[in-house]
């Protein structure tokens, strides 16, 4: 936990040298960050004759044709719906599973509690790429292949351990007295969890939701190898399909990219304050 702390202010005695470094450095990073994003937006509104004709950096005319083509001539809307479905499913399940497990690890007395804390972290750290070949077979055994919703259990592998770990870290910082009072008053464990713990855990839950959602929204490798039917694909795989062999359709592709990026970026902007504190729960420890 970062916790409340005084903001450190190195180099407060401002001088010209400091200003030059600050402004110069920020300008370089800002340009570096903005150029690719601007390129997505620019390509999405540039007519084809400008994209592939006489080369030029700035658009001469602006058009909505790529956006229209995206929605009328491609399966973009289907991919978008599929991605929403998978992402919401993964998010809801990750939250429930993570909070329940974290509650057990931090609030209940049982043998194996320390082990579960350990196992949670180890599973969070196991890289997905190490598992994809065997999981490709295992998913077939369980009947998860070529199904949009079948991706949800796969995505839980990557979101649940992190969500549990983060909930554990946050629950440890919440004083236990309130819950004890509610238990004395006759609440069951589940009632106390829902009425007392969950409201106190809201900031952590925001981060968990953000993490699980973007994880599922952005995932590519498993969606690529597990799903073959076009209408069941998610956005990243669907968009990557726009580049077929040597035929590039950059206009609609960048229009689709702009829309697909908007979702995680908006969520992230809305939750920015919590992201930093939540993601770094472990960064200042040990």
């Amino acid at each position, binding site marked *: 936990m*970062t916790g409340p702390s*005084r903001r*450190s*202010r*190195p*180099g407060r*005695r401002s001088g010209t040298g*400091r200003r030059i470094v600050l402004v110069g*450095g920020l300008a370089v*990073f800002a340009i*570096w*960050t*903005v150029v*690719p994003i601007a*390129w997505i937006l620019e*390509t999405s509104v540039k007519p084809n004759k400008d*994209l592939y004709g006489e080369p030029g*950096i700035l658009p001469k005319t602006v058009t909505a044709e790529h956006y229209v083509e995206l929605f009328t001539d491609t399966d973009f809307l289907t991919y978008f719906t599929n991605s929403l479905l998978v992402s919401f499913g993964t998010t809801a399940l990750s939250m429930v*599973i993570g909070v*329940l*497990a974290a509650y*057990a690890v931090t609030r209940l*007395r*049982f*043998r194996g509690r*320390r082990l*579960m804390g*350990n196992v949670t*972290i180890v599973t969070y*750290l*196991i*890289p997905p*790429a190490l*598992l994809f070949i*065997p999981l*490709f*077979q295992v998913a077939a055994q369980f009947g998860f292949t070529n199904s949009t919703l079948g991706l949800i259990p*796969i995505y839980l*592998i990557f979101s649940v*351990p992190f969500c549990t770990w983060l909930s554990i870290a946050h629950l440890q910082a919440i004083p236990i007295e309130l819950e004890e009072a509610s238990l004395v008053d006759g609440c069951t464990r589940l009632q106390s969890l829902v009425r007392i713990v969950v409201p106190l855990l809201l900031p952590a839950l925001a981060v968990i939701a953000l993490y699980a959602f973007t994880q599922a929204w*952005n995932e*590519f490798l498993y969606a690529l*190898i597990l799903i073959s039917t076009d209408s069941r694909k998610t956005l*990243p795989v669907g968009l*990557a399909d726009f580049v077929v062999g040597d035929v*590039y359709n950059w206009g609609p*592709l*960048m229009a689709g*990219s702009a829309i*697909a*990026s908007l979702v995680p*970026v908006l969520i*992230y902007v809305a939750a*920015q304050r919590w992201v930093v504190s939540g993601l*770094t729960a*472990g*960064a*200042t*420890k*040990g």
Partner: protein
Amino acid sequence: MRSGTLLGRDWRLAWTFLAPLGLIIVALIAYPFAYGIVLSFQHKLIGAPATWAGLSNYTDLLFGEQYGGVFRASVVASVLYTGVAVGAKLVLGMCMALLLNERFRGRTVMRGLLFVPWALPTVIVALTWRWMYEGSDHGLFNLVLGDLFGIGPVQFLADPRWALWSVLLVVIWQGTPFYTMMFLAGMQAIPADQYEAASIDGANVFRRFFHITLPWLRPAIVITTLLSTIWTANSINFIFILTNGGPVNTTLTFPMLAYQIGIQGRELGASSAVSVIFFPLFLVIIYVLTKRMLPADAKAGV
């Protein structure tokens, strides 16, 4: 603190609450993991029954004619790719964090902006850069090179001299903000009086950085670097979209090799062996990280 009974006071409820997590860990992580190790000792084509292979998948990769060359290429590519990416993200992330930790007007907006690449889907980032790298004079970089310097189109992704570095630039572009975020959070925890005392002693910017900021950030640096090493080494999206492992295997990192052998070549046994060979490296990192990321009271051994 341990209660008297053997299983602990609340064991029934505890394991009920842990059941879904346990199911995921056993069925979807532990089982595939063990199955992957078994596969690596088998000859197994997709859709065909497996036959026992002994160590032949491993010997094929290490010394064989079919896979030996590509496997060695993948070791070189993996080490270069991961090492350069992590090193660059660490340095750039630190610079970005130091700048954003200063007080200036519009700091919140600037932070929001510089973190955006990290929020974008990797596939979209990769596709966008592929279009910027486009080898004709319609791609952004070649447009600029042609207009300003009159240099004919450079094949950023198809030329073996440029491909790995071009991919690395994309990885660094997207990954740096995560480091910045972690370091910024760490910087908030440094007590301001440390810097005040140093200022009174007349310490300059560099002394303050090396004697105060860096030591205080050590835990954040270690955790961030190790986490990022695991993620970077195992990422496949950038390479898959930008170069597909080519040209002449210069960007063939080991997950890409596993994909080529296992999914494109349908040879699951040899492909699993690729992952298994690299796993001990990650085991070391995972061990160190687990000790550092343990919840506080588990560390105390309740």
